[in-house]
């Protein structure tokens, strides 16, 4: 199967590979996997406390070229967005940007799941630290 130029570019020069401190309360971590192909994807984002804007995003994906490109692109898009804006990213946006063929659409779904999981994790952490809960504790 032929990969599009954009997939190849992200595959050969993946952006934002790496990890952020999991224990940082401003960092959300999403770990997702596609069992049918045996892929595993970790995506992390750090939210600036004052502005609520995602200031950094990192990923590490073990999988096919399309899965790597999808998560690489996702981290690029996340930076500079608010959490709510990030939640609006759809897998179809990734499909269109990377010209993914039908058999690789699940890779983009995985990237969307990873974004959602990371934001869910971030919100959960923030929730735990909310003043109301702290008062109850």
């Amino acid at each position: 199967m032929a990969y599009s130029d954009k997939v190849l570019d992200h595959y050969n020069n993946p952006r934002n590979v790496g990890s952020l401190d999991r224990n940082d309360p401003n960092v959300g971590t999403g770990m997702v996997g596609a069992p049918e192909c045996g892929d595993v994807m970790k995506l992390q984002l750090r939210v600036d406390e004052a502005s609520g804007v995602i200031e950094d995003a990192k990923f590490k994906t073990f999988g096919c070229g399309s899965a790597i490109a999808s998560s690489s692109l996702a981290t690029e898009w996340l930076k500079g967005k608010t959490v709510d804006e990030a939640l609006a990213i759809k897998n179809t946006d990734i499909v269109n940007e990377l010209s993914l063929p039908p058999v690789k659409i699940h890779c983009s779904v995985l990237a969307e799941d990873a974004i959602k999981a990371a934001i869910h994790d971030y919100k959960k952490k923030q929730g735990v630290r909310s003043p109301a809960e702290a008062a109850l504790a």
Partner: protein
Amino acid sequence: MPVCWNCGKPPRDIHFCADCGSLQPPPANYFDFFELERKLVLDAAELDRRFYALSRRLHPDVFFRRGERERQYSLDSTAILNDAYRTLKDPVKRAEYLLKENGFETGEQKSANVPPELLEEVFELNMALEESAKEEIAAALAKFAAMRGESDVEMARQFERYDQSRERGVLAEIRGLLNRRKYIQNLIETANGTR
């Protein structure tokens, strides 16, 4: 039981009519095709025996001088015969097939269905593998092969459990085991440089 398309009597076996001997349209289900019970534990020698016997009986050459309908059935049957044999012969493919029949769609599994511990474990193993020096790869491979061996033993155990109980819960466990096996298999291929 359906009746023969040619003479209207019930066929002797699933492939041929007892009365007129006409070849019947092939059953779509792989277990039915070999007249096997829908079980996960399977006698490989028995499957081989049935495969070779059916290969001879269903071969297009046998139907060379017959009507168009039987010639077509022969082609259809032979195609299913080969797919069915390859699928049922391999324990993983056999289990995938039975799961699909029971409504476990492999292609539509979501991350939510994969236990987080498994993802963490697989991620860490991949990280470690990526960071290993060349001389450590052999040890990693041996470890993955052992993990695959353990998961195969567990799978065989769950196959028996399913055949006895026919419980959906066991199928769900088998689904999980197959997912884990796929991840281990990928690690092995990565370590071998074949992925």
